[in-house]
């Protein structure tokens, strides 16, 4: 019974081919080495991110996640020197040949610590800052700022000074500044690490909403995989500068090699792996404890 159900799931590749919306970000044969560093931070990375996907990027500290993010948003090679091989394109623009200002209309980045990103006297002026730099006309700027604040539920914070806000509010304010630029791709570096569990889930909900309703593509670096796997389309694991695993999140987590790469396998995924090893086949890898309970009770 279970075997039959398993075979009913189409291979990911066939699914992707059928629903291909177009590649938004493309990394081909990418290697990068910082000046005076012996080791390559990234080695021969190929990664093609489809428009509308939420891609989770994981791996142990120092595996090259941050370097890859920098290659995608243009900080490498525009701000960080080093030896770069291969090519990165985002929204059809070659990152190495496109000025940062033009890239910022395609790629937005939310840094791990929102305090590094918000600095104006009020939340709304902070959101408007990037638009001002892009030369967006005043009326449009006003409407984009209002719309973004509504979208993230922070309209009541418009006049507040960013340093007075709680961590969760700061995170939203910083994300608003990124979203107002209307990038096609948003990169989040550990967006929930400073947040309490429910606020973290709110941020995950926001990612889901922006992805579903507005078609924004996300690349998210996160150590707490149990939070993001339910909304991610794909999980990419890096180790020592190389891409080592890439697939549907629960398939990657159920891969017996996954634990060896220093990523936190959520308890539910571990249980699924254990049960599978014991010959207890479930129809599909569960995304949450509740889903696992449902599958166990249905079997």
């Amino acid at each position: 019974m279970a075997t039959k159900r398993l075979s009913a799931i189409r291979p990911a590749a066939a699914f992707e081919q059928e629903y291909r919306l177009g590649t938004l970000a493309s990394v081909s044969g990418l290697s990068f080495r910082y000046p005076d560093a012996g080791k390559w931070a990234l080695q021969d990375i190929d990664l093609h991110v489809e428009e509308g996907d939420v891609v989770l990027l994981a791996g142990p500290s120092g595996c090259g996640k941050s370097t890859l993010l920098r290659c995608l948003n243009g900080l490498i090679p525009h701000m960080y020197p080093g030896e770069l091989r291969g090519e990165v394109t985002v929204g059809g623009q070659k990152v190495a040949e496109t000025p940062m200002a033009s890239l910022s209309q395609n790629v937005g980045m939310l840094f791990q610590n929102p305090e590094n990103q918000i600095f104006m006297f009020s939340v709304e002026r902070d959101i408007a800052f990037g638009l001002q730099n892009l030369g967006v006309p005043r009326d449009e700027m006003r409407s984009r700022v209002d719309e973004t604040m509504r979208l993230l539920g922070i309209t009541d914070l418009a006049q507040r000074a960013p340093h007075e806000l709680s961590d969760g509010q700061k995170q939203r304010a910083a994300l608003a500044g990124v979203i107002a630029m209307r990038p096609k791709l948003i990169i989040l570096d550990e967006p929930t690490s400073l947040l309490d569990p429910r606020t973290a889930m709110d941020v995950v909900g926001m990612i889901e909403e922006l992805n579903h309703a507005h078609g924004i593509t996300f690349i998210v670096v996160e150590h707490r995989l149990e939070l993001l796997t339910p909304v991610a389309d794909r999980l990419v694991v890096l180790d020592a500068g190389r891409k080592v695993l890439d697939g549907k999140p629960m398939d990657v987590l159920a891969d017996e090699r996954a634990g060896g790469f220093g990523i936190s396998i959520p308890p539910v995924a571990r249980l699924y792996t254990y049960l599978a090893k014991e010959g207890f086949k479930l129809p599909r890898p569960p995304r949450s404890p509740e889903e696992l309970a449902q599958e166990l009770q249905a079997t």
Partner: protein
Amino acid sequence: MTLIEFDRVTFVHQTGTVALRDVSLRVSKGETVAIVGENGAGKTTLVRHINGLLKPSSGAVRVDGVDTRKITTATLSRKAGIAFQNPDHQLFSESVESEVKFALRNFGFTEEAIAERCDWALNFFGLAEYRKTSPLVLSGGEKKRLTLACILAWDPDIVVLDEPTVGQDALQKEKLSQIVKMLQATGKTVIIVSHDIEFLWPLQPRLVVMSGGRIVADGPTGQVMADKDVLVGARVTQPQLLRLYLALRVRPDKPFFDVPTAERWIAEAAP
């Protein structure tokens, strides 16, 4: 024996914000206590009273029977080491090595002991290769480990870890978990402030939940985590394993496994 005592503590910031409201808490020697709760609940403010960095606006904090207002922070620090949430607030020396040695010198250890303890701490936390490096160029996770190395080097009786897992990968988290168990085994009193419920669950500490500057629950992890109303109010979620157990319990006619069995399976599925 009570080692740390908060006696009706209220703390008001200079801006007038009330961060702690009438908080009473007793921690015994050798206990492991985790403090959870929403952003801004007062968790960090609470633990900063333990080494006297903050003094109560009203009420009293006593550490080993001594009122923290009657003793210097420097003296209290020998007894209680705090690893801050943001390591940048703590690191200032020009090299990793001198950072670890700084407090040891202040506490009057001999040069021989300083060298020995510094070597132990740097090796233990995998930082030996950065000995001569500036702490400022370390990664977020490495800085966090350095703050821990600095504190464990002087071997305080009370170890306070404020959000220790932020920026740490699975291997480092596992190591942190081992460190907490080691501290428990050697009779240390450990206070952990954390949002990382999955990290706390296997340690099964005494769990204190804070919300709006007050303690709203206090008890064994399993018991407190089962109280959904309290958790929702404090913006805390249940760990995956407990959620699974509760979801399975909905159909008691089909008992599948209990929490300890599932924990054993999870351990066996580990790499």
